[in-house]
């Protein structure tokens, strides 16, 4: 009974306390003011396609005290514009004092910038307006001069060797192991009376690997025309399909067997990656080609194709520059052309001066790169300052 009385008294006391007017809460003190950023400078962003202005400023003196949270950048068409006409165009955290406005509405028109510092405690202060700046587009990116020089050098070497090849100069290219197997593979298919399957990759015509694959297809088609061996060329890309059809047709004509060309030997399957893999697997399982060629660009379907082909007992020759798919081809195929070997094979087989010249040009470029690499390495070990210079030369803006 006594305890109930005590609880009752406590409740009554609480209720009374609640009904009494609460003392007014002390108003939040205004955050300590923060000093605005110093001189704000705006200029056209160099080496770009326009519509961009770079802004930098002197940090607020309070940044050194650790009071600053960041800076908000504003743009306006007039330095004297009222607050409502300043558009927020960027924010950078403390420690940075530059920003790039990449949304400049018009090239050749003056714009002004202001930077508002925001403190950790919520205070802010805005700078004076910057100088007027106008964005413009440049035709030439001077930061990429090194890439231009390297490209020109490479093109010059290639053009030189193409010219040499066209003049009839003999350009030596060493034989690649996988190529010796091509004839053997075609012969085997002929003996067994089974077709040859040639997959020219899954990429588009713009891929160098696809072009190399089509060159090899031309040579393989000549041999199938010669031996009268059926050829199957499934395609994923409609343009590659068209070109492959022309390549095979031309190969049959060159051998003097245009009548042996079967229009349906080169066909389109589907654009879907795995749908294509599924279709080719079905062909391999049912048509049981004696030889499978996988040349060109491949992705995740590489192992699915090569593994099915291996299961059917076909001789398999693969060639790709897709680094991540090469291990699968090496594992599941009898011969694999690794990376540049694919291009070299295409040049070796086709004996086209343009291809041979390009291959030679690449070889000389590689030799030059190795020389530069070794020389740069030696120099940078002798004088560490040279290393920074070399790295600077190799940096692209």
């Amino acid at each position, binding site marked *: 009974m006594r305890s109930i009385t005590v609880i009752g008294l406590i409740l009554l006391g609480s209720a009374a306390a609640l009904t009494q007017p609460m003392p007014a809460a002390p108003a939040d003190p205004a955050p300590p003011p923060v000093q605005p950023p110093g001189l704000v400078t705006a200029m056209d962003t160099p080496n770009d396609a326009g519509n961009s202005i770079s802004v930098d400023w002197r940090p607020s003196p309070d940044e050194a005290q650790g009071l600053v949270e960041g800076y908000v950048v504003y743009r306006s068409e007039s330095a004297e514009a009222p607050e409502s006409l300043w558009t927020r165009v960027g924010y950078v955290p403390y420690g940075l004092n530059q920003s790039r406005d990449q949304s400049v509405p018009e090239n050749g028109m003056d714009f002004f910038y202001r930077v508002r510092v925001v403190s950790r405690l919520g205070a802010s202060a805005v700078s004076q307006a910057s100088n007027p700046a106008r964005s413009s587009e440049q035709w030439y990116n001077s930061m*990429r001069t*090194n*890439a231009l020089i*390297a*490209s020109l050098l*490479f*093109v010059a070497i290639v053009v030189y060797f193409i010219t040499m090849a066209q003049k009839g100069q003999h350009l*030596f*290219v*060493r034989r690649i192991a996988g190529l010796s197997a091509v004839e053997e593979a075609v012969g085997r298919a002929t003996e067994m009376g089974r077709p040859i399957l040639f997959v020219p990759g899954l990429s*588009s*015509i*713009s891929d*160098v690997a696809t072009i190399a694959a089509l060159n090899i297809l031309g040579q393989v088609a000549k041999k199938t025309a010669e031996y009268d061996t059926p050829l199957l060329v499934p395609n994923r890309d409609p*343009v590659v399909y*068209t*070109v492959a059809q022309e390549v095979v047709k031309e190969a049959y004509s060159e051998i003097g067997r245009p009548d042996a060309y079967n229009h349906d030997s080169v066909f389109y399957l*589907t*654009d879907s990656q*795995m*749908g*294509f893999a*599924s*279709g080719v*697997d*079905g062909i391999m*399982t*049912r048509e049981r080609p004696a030889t499978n060629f996988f040349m060109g660009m491949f992705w995740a379907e590489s*192992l699915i194709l090569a593994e099915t082909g291996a299961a059917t007992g076909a001789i398999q020759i693969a060639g790709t520059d897709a*680094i*991540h798919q*090469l*291990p*699968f081809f*090496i*594992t599941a195929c009898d011969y694999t052309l690794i*990376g*540049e*070997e694919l291009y070299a094979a295409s040049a070796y087989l086709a004996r086209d001066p343009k291809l041979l010249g390009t*291959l*030679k040009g690449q*070889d*000389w470029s*590689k*030799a030059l*790169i*190795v020389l*530069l*690499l070794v020389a*740069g*390495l030696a120099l*940078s*070990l002798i004088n*560490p300052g040279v*290393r920074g210079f*070399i*790295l600077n030369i*190799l*940096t*692209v803006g």
Partner: protein
Amino acid sequence: MSTDIWVWIAALLSLAIFSYLYKDNPVFRFAEHLFTGLSVGYMIVLMWNNYAYQYIVIPISQQRWITLIPMALGMLYLFRFVPKLQHLMLIPIAITLGIWNGWSIPVVIEADLFKQMQGTMVNTTMFQNPWDPHNGLVVGLLVVVGVVCTVLYFYFSREHRGPLKVASSVGIWFVMIGFGASFGYTVMARMSLLIGRIQFLFTEWIHLIK
């Protein structure tokens, strides 16, 4: 067991594909043909929505007549059905090839060549802790030897004899070790795909895993 008809269809088609592990059979063939056929239909719709509609129909409806130029160039492909004018389809192919090759040469030089050369530069700070796995001299020299020997393996203008044979043999070892690592990594990724499919069968279809 799931009561969703689509889960059942997906599960039965998955099993149909797995049936190839035993041997080729009509059920697998049905699933394979269905998949290939469906993908063609799906791609036609995708091409229309993502390309034809976006880049032809919308711009022309907005009277952006400049679109007619690439459209006309693209339509030259259709001349492959006209035997006498078939050569016209080579024009868009030549344009595509030219643009891509021109675009890719500087990009390859910047992204592959320059970056690779930068990464190969040994520095004197590497002498301070030669065995550091990230910035030690041993790792730095391995990278240099690997890069130089691998490049020499892909040198086709000379027979691989004498010193070039030694260097290219070292190079192909580096290449194969790299491929081995890549192989292991990708096999792991494929395993996770298989696990995902089995999880689907056991979780969403037969509710064995909850």
